[in-house]
């Protein structure tokens, strides 16, 4: 896999232009589009956190939404139940998600492959059930609403800009991790845990580390989502969100740093535009996934890579 394409000046330019373009659309295309873009960017962060686990740690999680939900509820409960100022509570959400990742991760990394995936699913279902059933504290299936002005009271456009900034910062942090000695260790264990162990690396410790890191980033996404909606519901930790993130990573491109981001852009934009034409969104999504997986098994990012090479924008040796 290409761990992270080297950022040549041209690629930095393209990335900068895309960010400017996104901001221009945000400012010029109306409130509706700003809301769509905000959701897209939050889900891109969430999918990228799952991508960190899947593409580098080779750990397929069927329960990543648990940490999205814990982030959302960590923030919401801090504000709604403990009167913590929102400026402080935004840090509590990711911390709660990280702690959840630490506890559940310690359990999950004891097993590998499909058994690991089933444990992550079980942990997520436990989280969902607690959020769903604990009416006195979490509000149960009615969730928690009306505890704050959505988006901190910012306009739709300004909040989208804020989310964009947070996403860019998080992507920088993820890229830094991926390219660090820790990133190399994560990839080593992901590729061959026995080889890594024979070299003196404790695989479970590495897997738990990346699990917690991915949980914190998912928690940041969950916190942003709770702020965006001004509410928290148990569904945030449900299977639906996990499946969305899984589809985004696969659509965008597994084994690519940009897979989650690109997948989120495709999925959210597809939903937005398809719903304008037909209400059969799920049918269209199923067809889109079918076609893309058959035609582009390595995801949409692989097309960008090939195009980049064809145009001579690839890394020079």
């Amino acid at each position: 896999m290409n761990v992270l394409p080297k950022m040549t000046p041209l690629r930095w330019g393209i990335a900068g232009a895309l960010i400017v373009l996104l901001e221009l659309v945000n400012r010029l295309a109306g409130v509706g589009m700003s809301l769509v873009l905000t959701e897209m960017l939050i889900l891109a962060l969430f999918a990228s956190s799952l991508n960190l686990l899947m593409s580098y740690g080779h750990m397929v999680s069927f329960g990543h939404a648990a940490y999205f939900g814990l982030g959302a509820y960590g923030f919401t409960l801090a504000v709604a139940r403990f009167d913590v100022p929102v400026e402080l509570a935004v840090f509590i959400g990711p911390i709660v998600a990280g702690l959840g990742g630490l506890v559940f991760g310690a359990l999950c990394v004891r097993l590998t492959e499909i058994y690991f995936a089933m444990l992550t699913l079980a942990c997520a279902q436990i989280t969902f059930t607690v959020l769903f059933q604990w009416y006195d504290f979490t509000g149960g299936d009615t969730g928690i609403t009306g505890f704050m002005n959505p988006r901190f009271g910012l306009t739709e456009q300004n909040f989208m800009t804020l989310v964009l900034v947070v996403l860019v910062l998080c992507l920088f942090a993820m890229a830094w991790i991926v390219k660090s000695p820790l990133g190399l260790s994560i990839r080593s264990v992901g590729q061959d845990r026995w080889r890594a162990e024979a070299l003196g690396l404790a695989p479970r410790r590495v897997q738990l580390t990346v699990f917690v890191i991915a949980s914190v980033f998912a928690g940041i996404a969950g916190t942003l989502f709770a702020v965006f909606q001004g509410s928290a519901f148990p569904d945030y930790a449900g299977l639906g969100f996990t499946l969305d993130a899984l589809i985004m990573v696969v659509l965008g491109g597994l084994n690519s740093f940009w897979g989650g981001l690109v997948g989120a852009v495709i999925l959210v934009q597809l939903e937005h535009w398809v719903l304008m034409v037909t209400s059969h969104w799920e049918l269209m999504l199923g067809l889109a996934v079918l076609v893309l997986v058959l035609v582009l098994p390595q995801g949409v990012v692989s097309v960008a890579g090939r195009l980049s090479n064809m145009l001579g924008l690839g890394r020079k040796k």
Partner: protein
Amino acid sequence: MKEHSLLSVRGVRKTFGQFVALNNVDFDLPAGEKHALIGPNGAGKSTFIACIAGQLPGVEGTVLFKGEEVTAAAPVDLARRGIGRTFQISRAFLDMSAMENMTSAFVIANGAWASLRRSVLANAEDSARSMLETVGLGDHAGSRVADLSLGDRKRLEFGMALANDPDLLLLDEPTAGMSIKERHHLMDLVAARIDETGKTLLFVEHDIDVVLKIATRVTVMVRGAVLAAGTPAEIAENEEVQAVYLGGHH
């Protein structure tokens, strides 16, 4: 345990169901030896290496390394104590470049696996570059391991096993699947490195020419037990060995 033994094995027994893979094996390995384990297929050589390397559960008997019991120690603990190894079937990180593989080995050897600092990575890369040159892979640093030849992969693995400067190096059939020329090339490299560093080598090998050329001492295993041990010349002359292993025509 004999005096000055780096590795001492006493009464090691390993069964797989009803099958007895190792039966009461005693073995001593003094520091500085290049020791070959030979024997027909199914003799228990690889099982023996796996037992020492902490890869198999339920091993009976005692394994002492540097005088300390390591019988139930995990591979990661053994690696930290100074046992390096390669596998019978090549196990490098296939989807990473040779450079990344070697850098990973040095990052781990330096105890810096959780570091986020680029300078730590840069130091490991310097060491990795030097080791790649040593094992003759300097020109393949950027190549994906999956694209390397088997011989190159084995050399890479050998270099990776050396990253934490192990006192004992376990090589399980390091030349399996390689051409005669590649075998000698690799094992000459291994022997030179061991001689240079004064470390200890235990290797499983089927190619008798390689064994006679490299080993300072040889242990012959048959049906899970030690049949004979001695210098290569003694083993070559041993009638039991000739009958069982060499087919009696030497």
